């Protein structure tokens, strides 16, 4: 595709030179033509990158800055830092559907028994799909950005259903889901104000030093979805907020570049260089 664009640009240059009707090209005119060529190439490269990215279903992941979940302990043992939450949002060319993964790392001593996620921006439980607890490896880039390499799907996290005769049935994978409510003082009744999800440990939970990812898909963007999260250990609960990129938080981290995009950009630059060389040859002859 890039070579086709290059060919058309070159044809256009030749046509323009013929129109000028001057075999001896002045340096000013040459500079003008080169500048125009470069501009056209840059534009072509941008179009190519966008088009190929959309065609290939290219995805990027936005990594939100880590959030330390805060405990509500009244003693001075300093629970802050026991749990780190990092949100990764993966999407195709910035449009939905979006895959959200909340990566939780347990830096405390006690095992984590639950993960709660409350979304105040969306009041539609059906719009959340593809729930998946994941194993993963925590990484830190050279720029200090924390990100995760997803591993396999976990079966020891999910939720319990309570049947009519009070039997507990483990349901691996998906969380318990319900509508979160608040009390409307004016209407004097509880009103739905969001969706809430609770992944429970079906086994021993998330032990110290380990990470886990809680993934799901939504058609809604991060500014609507990313909100309140919490985890629970044996005695304490820890809470934090992860906001979408529209908010004032420093969460709009640039995407981690993908190899396909880097290769495209490199081939684009190569194309420009080849055009420049061709133009130089032409002006010499």
């Amino acid at each position: 595709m890039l070579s086709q664009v290059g060919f058309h640009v070159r044809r256009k240059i030749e046509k323009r030179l013929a129109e000028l009707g001057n075999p001896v090209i002045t340096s000013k005119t040459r500079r003008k033509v080169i500048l125009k060529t470069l501009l056209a190439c840059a534009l072509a490269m941008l179009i190519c990158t966008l088009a190929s990215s959309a065609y290939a279903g290219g995805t990027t992941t936005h990594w939100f800055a880590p959030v330390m979940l805060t405990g509500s302990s009244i003693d001075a043992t300093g629970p802050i830092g026991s749990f780190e939450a990092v949100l990764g949002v993966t999407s195709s060319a910035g449009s939905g559907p979006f895959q959200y993964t909340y990566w939780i790392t347990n830096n405390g001593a006690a095992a984590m028994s639950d993960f709660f996620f409350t979304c105040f921006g969306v009041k539609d439980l059906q719009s959340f799909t593809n729930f998946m607890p994941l194993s993963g490896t925590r990484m830190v880039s050279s720029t200090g950005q924390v990100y995760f390499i997803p591993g396999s799907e976990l079966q020891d996290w999910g939720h319990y259903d309570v049947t009519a005769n009070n039997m507990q049935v483990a349901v691996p994978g998906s969380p318990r889901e319900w509508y979160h409510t608040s009390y409307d003082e004016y209407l004097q009744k509880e009103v739905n104000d969001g969706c809430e999800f609770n992944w429970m440990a079906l086994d021993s939970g998330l032990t110290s030093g380990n990470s886990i990812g809680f993934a799901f898909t939504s058609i809604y963007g991060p500014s609507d979805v990313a909100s309140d999260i919490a985890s629970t250990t044996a005695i304490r609960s820890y809470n934090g907020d992860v906001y979408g990129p529209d908010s004032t938080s420093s969460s709009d981290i640039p995407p981690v570049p993908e190899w396909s995009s880097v290769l495209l950009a490199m081939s684009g630059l190569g194309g420009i260089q080849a055009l420049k060389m061709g133009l130089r040859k032409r002006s010499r002859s």
Partner: protein
Amino acid sequence: MKGALFCAVALMLVLVASAGAYADWGMTPLYNADHSQSVELTPSYSLSGSTYTYMYSLKNTTSSKTIQEFILTLPGAVSVSGFANIAGPTGWSALVRPTFNQLDWFKDTGSSLLPGQTFTFSFTSSYGPSSTAVAGAACQDAIGLSGQTFSPIPEPASLIAMMTGLVGLVGLKMRRK
């Protein structure tokens, strides 16, 4: 003989007084992370025969928050697997999670605990109260309120020890006579 009779009567009185007696440990607030929100938790127990009934009254003292889940984490020495008659508000379900020694009540088809309201969560156990046992309590959702309460947990052993001591005392007195 009189002494033995006296001891027996005293023991009877103690048992009668404790059976059906209702004791609480005072209110414990559960806070969120910045202490801007709190609810009040009041644990209590009663004894009927050799079975204790534990009750945790949770009062929503927030202005607009609703409570949809209540988790109680018992100390390691107690096994929640032995708890029975786990009950909560109408339309709430209860989960027993032995791995974490937790009882987890959550809103199912019922209504949330609204501001100003009090809900009671209860269970029975053969374990007696102990002032040293600590239970963690949390109203876990977007509010994330939690705290620790000095709860009435186990010691079936202490009552048995007391009774054995009294019987021994009676025996000793009878033998002297």
